[in-house]
């Protein structure tokens, strides 16, 4: 595995509208990476760890994570991914949520979130944030997946 493999974007977002807006803006920002969308935590985790084309088994990924999910809290997923010894520990995670609560933001960074973006209602700001995300995607160095074991 190497850094030239295309990065898959895994979007975990239960709101179809938000997902569509995010996708639209990612595309508009000129990012053509594959986007896999999951509306709940369970299927997202299943894909991350078990799918043959999932990040754990195959290829680098970037995770867009919403904190409010129907079946579990986004912070639970974040904690799982960033836990010591986890194969996905170095996968960048961008937390996207409506909360601008300082305590919650702090908690996400403590758990190892790479970027925290508040979903603003102001469309322009939102688009800017997504575009910045695209820039971020363009420059990230996806690390080599460590061999298992």
């Amino acid at each position: 595995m190497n850094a030239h493999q295309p990065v898959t974007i895994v979007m975990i977002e239960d709101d179809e509208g938000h997902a569509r807006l995010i996708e639209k803006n990612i595309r508009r920002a000129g990012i053509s990476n594959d986007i896999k969308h999951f509306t709940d935590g369970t299927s997202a985790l299943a894909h991350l760890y078990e799918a043959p084309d999932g990040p754990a088994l195959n290829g680098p990924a970037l995770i867009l994570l919403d904190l409010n999910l129907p079946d579990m809290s986004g912070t639970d997923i974040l904690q799982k991914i960033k836990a010591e010894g986890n194969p996905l520990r170095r996968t960048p995670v961008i937390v996207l949520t409506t909360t601008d609560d300082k305590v919650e933001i702090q908690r996400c960074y403590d758990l190892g979130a790479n970027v925290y973006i508040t979903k603003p209602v102001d469309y322009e700001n939102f688009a800017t944030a997504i575009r910045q995300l695209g820039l971020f995607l363009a420059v990230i160095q996806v690390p080599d997946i460590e061999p298992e074991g």
Partner: protein
Amino acid sequence: MSQVHPCHTHTDRDQLHLYMALIRTCAVARGWTIPLLRSERSVSRFVLACMALGFIALIGSAGTAGWFVMKAQDHATWVEHTYEVERRISTLRVLIERLEVARRGYLLSHRQQTKDTFLTTVKDEVPLVSDLRRLTADNPVQQQNLDRFQALAVQHFQLLSRSLVLADKAPELAAAIFTHDQSLGVTRDLRAVTAAMLEEENRLLEQRIAAQREAVNILFYVLAFAGALAVATAIFSILVLRRYTGSLVASREEVLQLADELEDRVEERTRDLSRANEEIQRFAYIVSHDLRSPLVNVMGFTGELEAATKPLAALVDKVEAEAPQLLDQDAAAAAREDLPESIGFIRTSTQKMDRLINAILRLSREGKRVLTPERIDLGQLADAVVASLQHRLDELGAVVTVQRPMPSVVADRLAVEQMLSNLVENAVKYPKPGVPGRIAISAAGDRGRVDIAVADNGRGIDPRDHERIFDLFRRSGQQDQPGEGIGLAHVRALAYRLGGFISCKSALGEGATFTLSLPAQPTTQG
């Protein structure tokens, strides 16, 4: 939150209901009713009356006993008196016999000594008789006897002295006369009289001894009765006291138990209330949180729509320029005016909704914040608040003065700062047209509370709105200033959290004074 207010007033009323219900429950559980309580009172009155009667009877019998003792003593005196009289009568009898003996002796021996004895004996007789007369003054029978005795005694004396005189002159004749002398009869009579007197006295003595014995007997009965009464009263008193003490202890235990129960209930209630409060906080947080989610969509897709209208408008322009015959007026109006107008309204409304939701979120977050009371110098704090608002004050040409001295208060610094800041901002926000704002901050401590007043010379508030302005999203007067009606609601919510309250005094056109009353020391509520 504005919900805190109804909760607050409900607490007191609920507490009152709770106490009443408790008292009622306890009363029913113990079979108490109001009439029963009244009868209990009458029973205790009865017991008291009984005891009082017992003690009165005791005192009465003691008095009676005393009276009988005095009476017995009286009888004893009379008995003694009788003995005295008897003694004198006996002496009298002895004297009479001695007179007789002395005369006979003289007649036989003619000795001067015997004659002297006779004369002294006569002399002794006189005071004895007068004594007896005095002692038996109350007894007519004895007086009569004494009269007779005196008459006889005089006769006797005359006879005897005549015989003595005769004995000196003619001893043989005297001796001869002696044998048929009347004196023997008189002597006999004297003996009889004195015997009658003795008998009379004996009769009296018997009578008096009997009376005395009777008095002693009665005294004994009275004493026995009094003793029994004393024992009965004592037993009754002890029983009543024991019962009374028992019921006192029982009711004390009951009261203690009630107090315990009440404390438990109050604790439980407080727990319920704080749980309900937490629930409201959580609810507000979740609602505002979840309300933002669809709002993101509305806003986002409005943006998409706006973006989509641009190529549409461009297309309409192009068609108008190149093929005007194809242009539909309605389509042109829709693309150029209707769509941008609708989108504009949607945008402003969603923006406002976002601000409101943010306000609720902020208030609920504020409600969750842990308060840390500390001693605050209000003068310093007011200066700091004025300094932080200086830029805005300069813009508006308003002047804020902090009136000293100012007391200190123990409360959460951030909360007090926020409240004062909101009040000052509110005061400068609505000036009277053409009049520069003059705001005065003052504070005074009184009986465990500190009142902080912010007075302005602004346009004033209609008295009808004095409560309403503290409600969330409610404003008063002309709406010519930006704002959502959050600042004062925030002040009230914080004031309630600190155990204080806020009030407003104002009339239209006459400025307004907001008074924030806080406890000088924090109350138990966190």
